[in-house]
């Protein structure tokens, strides 16, 4: 079964082709096709994962391009790290597609939606099993395209089209850096294969080139995983259908950036400066996004900022050297964040609004949605023994062992804010009294609630493999993968439970929940007072720290002014030159035309006339009169005789 690994992405790709070409005919069958393709991918992927668990990494490759003396290969690498992603993508992807079949049921472009989702699945799976940066990058770009298409899926809405564009252009900034990074790496190390990276990093250890390459590759992460300062696209991406937000902008695609760092881990380990940058950026992002989430009132926006914040967590973990911690959080986060988004989708589906201020008391009306949502919130808040607790604890432990108190306390504060805003959301939406009497919420159909419950099981249990109950099996598995890749030592220290860290983590989780309960259920009037007291902070949060405005002033306006200026230069200088050149050309061609007409043509005509004249003379010989010819032949014969006899 393992040998079929390279074909995993093929299933969704076939589904994409069918749905995009024959969508008109398959109609609602599109969902079945896509889901069947995902299930087929699962069916191949899960045994492959089992194989890797028992026998170690699997890889296969063929030669692809020959660049000078260097070869680019093309192949598949399935190591423990890849397995984690493969597991998450196939499983969550399938569940979300099942959910989408219900959520998108009445959409006019039903089959197109599933076509895009299948294409995305194909790209994501290719990325996961890619064994080199180039293939990785290609899949990465296709994912970017799918993201763009799906964010702008309802492109008749201007805001959706704009959001799609924004997402595409913003991530492009990071991708350019990523690509330059790949080329830098190739120039420096001569290889793009992940398996050779350890060796390459060892060769170039701590050189400026390696640091540059690592930082440039990190640019890709910054764009794709919405890290500061390129995070602005992700909240807007919520314009897309909610299952898309769940699949692409929470569980899988944005996690690809984190995956990229994990893949390049040997590189970063050899470049401490780059590592440091990664940790700082991750921490900043985590804190900043959590801060903005505090005041958001749109249910999906809260989740979007939460996603950014959690991604920042993962990036920070990797930056601190917590390879296993970051990857672990990636997996658990995929489960509970997908669940949160799907739950939010269910809420939106039931109430037809996204504004938290209009919800309230939905628990009674949407029992399944509410129950699973609360479970997911507990998980993200870090309440033991749910998955989020174990992974977040790992990250805090990594920060603690890195002896970096600033990062440690920032992350702890972020954890507190996380649990606070999540439970603010839960209490506003599901508890208390309904705020808007016009909303008649109803529970979603089974096709949507069943995936919710399945994901809830995942959200609860996903942390267990990395917990002390299973002797940190997950971390050991990953470390084995790292060793199989031939680089970096394991991180034994992080497997020890540090009581101080656990205490911080628990305090943050419960502190957040209790304060949210106190402010939004016990004393609903308090938040307004608090926001008035801390007005500058509140406005900062409400306006998302003015990032969009700052970018408008810093980039968009100067670019606009610059392009206007360039346009004016174009219009007045270049056009003037072009026109002058044109006029000059016209003038010279008129002279040339005269020469052509009178001299060249004259010569040609002269030749013609000469030939005509000569032939007019010669043709007189052709009288058509038989005996003239005979006479000439006869006289010719006589002449020949004479000449012959003369000799």
């Amino acid at each position, binding site marked *: 079964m393992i040998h079929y690994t390279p074909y995993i992405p093929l299933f969704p790709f076939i589904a994409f082709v069918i749905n995009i070409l024959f969508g008109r005919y398959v109609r609602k069958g599109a969902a079945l096709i896509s889901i069947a393709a995902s299930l087929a991918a699962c069916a191949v992927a899960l045994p492959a994962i089992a194989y890797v668990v028992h026998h170690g990494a699997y890889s296969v490759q063929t030669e692809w391009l020959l660049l000078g003396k260097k070869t680019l290969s093309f192949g598949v690498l399935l190591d423990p790290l890849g397995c984690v992603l493969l597991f998450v993508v196939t499983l969550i992807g399938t569940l979300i597609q099942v959910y989408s079949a219900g959520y998108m049921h009445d959409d006019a472009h039903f089959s197109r939606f599933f076509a895009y989702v299948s294409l995305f699945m194909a790209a994501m799976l290719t990325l996961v099993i890619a064994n080199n940066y180039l293939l990785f990058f290609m899949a990465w770009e296709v994912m970017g395209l799918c993201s763009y298409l799906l964010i702008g899926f309802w492109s008749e809405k201007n805001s959706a089209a704009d959001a799609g564009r924004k997402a595409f252009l913003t991530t492009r900034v990071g991708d350019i850096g990523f690509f330059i990074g790949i080329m830098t790496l190739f120039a420096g190390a001569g290889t793009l294969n992940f398996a050779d990276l350890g060796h390459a990093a060892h060769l170039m250890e701590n050189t400026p080139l390696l640091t540059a390459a690592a930082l440039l590759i990190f640019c890709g992460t910054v764009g794709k995983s919405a890290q500061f300062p390129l995070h602005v696209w992700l909240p807007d991406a919520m314009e897309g259908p909610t299952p898309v937000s769940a699949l692409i902008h929470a569980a899988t695609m944005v996690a690809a950036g984190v995956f990229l760092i994990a893949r390049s881990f040997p590189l970063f380990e050899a470049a401490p400066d780059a590592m440091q940058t990664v940790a700082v950026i991750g921490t900043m992002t985590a804190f900043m996004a959590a801060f903005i989430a505090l005041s958001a009132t749109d249910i999906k926006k809260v989740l979007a900022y939460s996603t950014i914040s959690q991604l920042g967590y993962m990036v920070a973990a990797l930056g601190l050297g917590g390879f296993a911690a970051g990857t672990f959080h990636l997996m658990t986060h995929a489960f509970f964040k997908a669940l949160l988004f799907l739950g939010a989708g269910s809420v939106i589906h039931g109430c037809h609004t996204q504004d938290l201020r209009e919800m309230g008391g939905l628990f009674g009306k949407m029992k399944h949605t509410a129950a699973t949502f609360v479970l997911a919130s507990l998980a993200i808040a870090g309440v033991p023994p749910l998955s989020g607790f174990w992974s977040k604890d790992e990250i805090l432990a990594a920060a603690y062992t890195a002896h970096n108190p600033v990062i440690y306390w920032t992350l702890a504060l972020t954890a507190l804010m996380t649990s606070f805003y999540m439970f603010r959301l839960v209490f506003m939406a599901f508890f208390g009294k309904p705020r808007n009497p016009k909303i008649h919420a109803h529970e979603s159909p089974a096709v949507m609630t069943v995936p919710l419950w399945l994901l809830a099981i995942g959200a609860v249990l996903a942390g267990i493999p990395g917990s002390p109950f299973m002797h940190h099996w997950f971390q050991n598995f990953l470390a084995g993968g790292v060793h199989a890749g031939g680089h970096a030592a394991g991180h034994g220290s992080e497997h020890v439970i540090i009581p101080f860290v656990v205490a911080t983590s628990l305090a943050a989780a419960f502190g957040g929940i209790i304060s949210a309960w106190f402010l939004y259920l016990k004393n609903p009037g308090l938040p307004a007072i608090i926001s008035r007291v801390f007005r500058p902070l509140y406005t900062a949060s409400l306006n998302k720290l003015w990032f969009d405005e700052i970018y408008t002033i810093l980039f968009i306006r100067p670019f606009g002014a610059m392009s206007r200026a360039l346009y004016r230069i174009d219009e007045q200088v270049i056009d003037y030159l072009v026109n002058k050149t044109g006029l000059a050309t016209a003038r010279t061609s008129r002279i040339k035309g005269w020469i052509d007409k009178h001299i060249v043509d004259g010569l040609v005509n002269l030749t013609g006339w000469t030939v005509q004249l000569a032939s007019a003379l010669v043709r007189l010989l052709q009288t058509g009169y038989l*005996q003239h010819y005979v*006479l000439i032949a*006869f*006289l010719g*014969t*006589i002449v020949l*005789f*004479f000449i012959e*006899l003369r000799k």
Partner: protein
Amino acid sequence: MISEMQTGIQIGIYLVMALSVFAALAAVNLPNIFHAALAFIGTLLGIAGIFISLRADFLALAHILIYVGAVMTLVIFAIMLTQRLSDPNVRQHNNLSAPAFLGGLAFLTLMAKLIYTTPWPVKAAGTVPHVSVMDLGQALMTTYVFPFEVISVVLISALLGAIVIAKKDPL
């Protein structure tokens, strides 16, 4: 006696030659084409006489049969079929007589010079055996059997070609 007889024969041969040349001149110069054809028959007969003088009896016979009996008959038929042209009012010669005459004269001089300057390997009188009809027949059936067959094919094709060409409506 013998030499007198020889002289007589010689005179006879020269006479035949002269008559033949005269008839030939008539054949090319007579304004009536019908008369010209008749004059040419005279030439042919003279040539047959020359053949006899060369002891080619069979050839002389065949010559008369084929030319006078067949070819000239055909020619006269053709002349009569194109009746309008035997009309004496139609001019029978073009205006190329002068160059043709001069050219002919030059050619003839040339030929005469050639004939008299070439050392012909003439064999002594009486050493060349007489060629009988049997010899001719044997040669035709042995040495020259291939040209003989080719000639028959040529004759057949000429026959068919003539029919096809002269037919009123083409095939």
